[in-house]
């Protein structure tokens, strides 16, 4: 208890609200992520998990609430300060969001060349190395993103997210669309990023076996707020009906009951 309060959280979201017109997506989202911790967010589709990550990155501005990174409030940063903050963060987008005007290796090296002003040749070497880490050969580097399968795009997105050795990494559904074996490889890679490089990670996933492998802590998002949050070992005895239903993937439970009412 004393330990957790003494240390500044790497990322702190306090009572964050986000609306799109009448749709109230985040309804008081509160979460602390400690340095070098790997937190997995679970929750149904469309509950605002991706929106939450975009709020932290400043791609969306919350309507209410505070977001801090390393103790620094980030909601109303100037452009240059925001760039400095985002330079510490790597992001894997849900649909990879690769630049289709660039080749695969240029995608992976983008942050190095544009953000960190590295020489193209040096950046290419790192890009090839990162591609190898996600199980893609150097020959893939020369292809254009349009020539890749969905799973390969995801892995290129992952390589791009970790290329700059970021301090904080967000993984939006990293294993969706991958076969189980490649999913496992990616899980190991995420664990390695967190454990060896000392990064702080927030991952979003629907894949419970994968979530158990990569998480130190899990948080369940329901109706725009965190309804349960605890160490991964305790997820099976959370005593929360929503969590139990979600992790068991059962059709019966409080979540569906409320869907029926609509």
């Amino acid at each position: 208890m004393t330990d957790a309060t003494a240390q500044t959280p790497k990322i702190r979201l306090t009572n964050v609200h986000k609306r799109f017109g009448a749709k109230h997506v985040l309804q008081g989202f509160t979460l602390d992520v400690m340095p070098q911790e790997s937190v997995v967010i679970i929750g149904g589709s469309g509950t605002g998990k991706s929106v939450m990550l975009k709020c932290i990155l400043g791609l969306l501005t919350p309507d209410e609430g505070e977001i801090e990174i390393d103790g620094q409030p980030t909601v109303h940063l100037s452009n240059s300060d925001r760039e400095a903050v985002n330079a510490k963060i790597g992001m894997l987008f849900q649909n990879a969001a690769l630049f289709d005007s660039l080749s695969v290796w240029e995608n992976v090296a983008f942050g190095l060349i544009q953000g960190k002003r590295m020489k193209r040749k040096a950046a290419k070497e790192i890009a090839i190395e990162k591609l190898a880490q996600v199980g893609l050969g150097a020959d893939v580097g020369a292809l254009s993103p349009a020539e890749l399968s969905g799973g390969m795009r995801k892995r290129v997105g992952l390589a791009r997210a970790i290329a700059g050795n970021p301090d904080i990494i967000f993984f939006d559904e990293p294993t969706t669309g991958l076969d189980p074996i490649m999913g496992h490889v990616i899980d190991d890679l995420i664990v390695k990023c967190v454990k060896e490089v000392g990064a702080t990670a927030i991952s979003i996933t629907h894949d419970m076996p994968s979530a158990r492998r990569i998480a130190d802590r899990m948080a369940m998002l329901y109706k725009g707020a965190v309804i349960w949050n605890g160490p991964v070992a305790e997820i099976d005895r959370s005593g929360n009906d929503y969590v139990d239903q979600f992790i068991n993937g059962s059709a019966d439970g409080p979540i569906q009951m409320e869907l029926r009412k609509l």
Partner: protein
Amino acid sequence: MNPLRAIGAASLRFLAATGRLTVFALSGVGHCIRPPIYPRLILRQMVDIGYYSLPVVGLTTLFAGMVLALQSYTGFARFSAEGAIPSVVVLSICRELSPVLAGLMIAGRIGAAMAAELGTMRVTEQVDALETLSTNPIKYLIAPRLLAGVTMLPFLVLIGDIMGVFGGFVVSVYKLGFNEQTYLINTWNFLEAQDVISGLVKASVFGFLVALMGCYHGFHSRGGAQGVGAATTNAVVSASILILIANYLITEMFFAT
């Protein structure tokens, strides 16, 4: 329903949109002159706009010059004023037809392509991805397009001027029986620097407008493929209208006495 309220709401929406566009344009221009600049991207846009539009602009202005000679001949022959044809052709081409036709063609070719490309980047989150990779999307995507538009349209219009005059020359000499030398001398003698310069100024402004509309609508598109389609249409229509309005204003600036 209160009609005043509807008018008020529409005016507010219009003012808000104008304000957003102005802020967007200013920040785009600001990024053109502040480092870092991206020579590679600027060059690619310049080639796209300048080089690959040459056939379109060349053909339209060539035929415009040809039809102009033919039409003025049928009119002027009634007053035995055929001698005015070279000057009519060169003045109309340089002052009006070449810039306006090139502008409208580029609006269709480049404005639409810009809106579609940026719109797709927006809805597939590539614009968001740029920001997370410490790259300002306005600087990386918008500034090179604005720069290329402003610089390449005058080049195209210059080519258009030559093609248009050439079209008029061909029709006059080979169809209407003009003497080659007299035609060229008359063309040259009537042309003043201001005629060409006003056309190039127009071209620069039109290039800016086309790039701005393509970028603005593409950059702010939302809602998947349908949104990108709407952005493309809006970019072409708004650029075309703005070109015609700007054309009048610049003409008045140069030639109203």
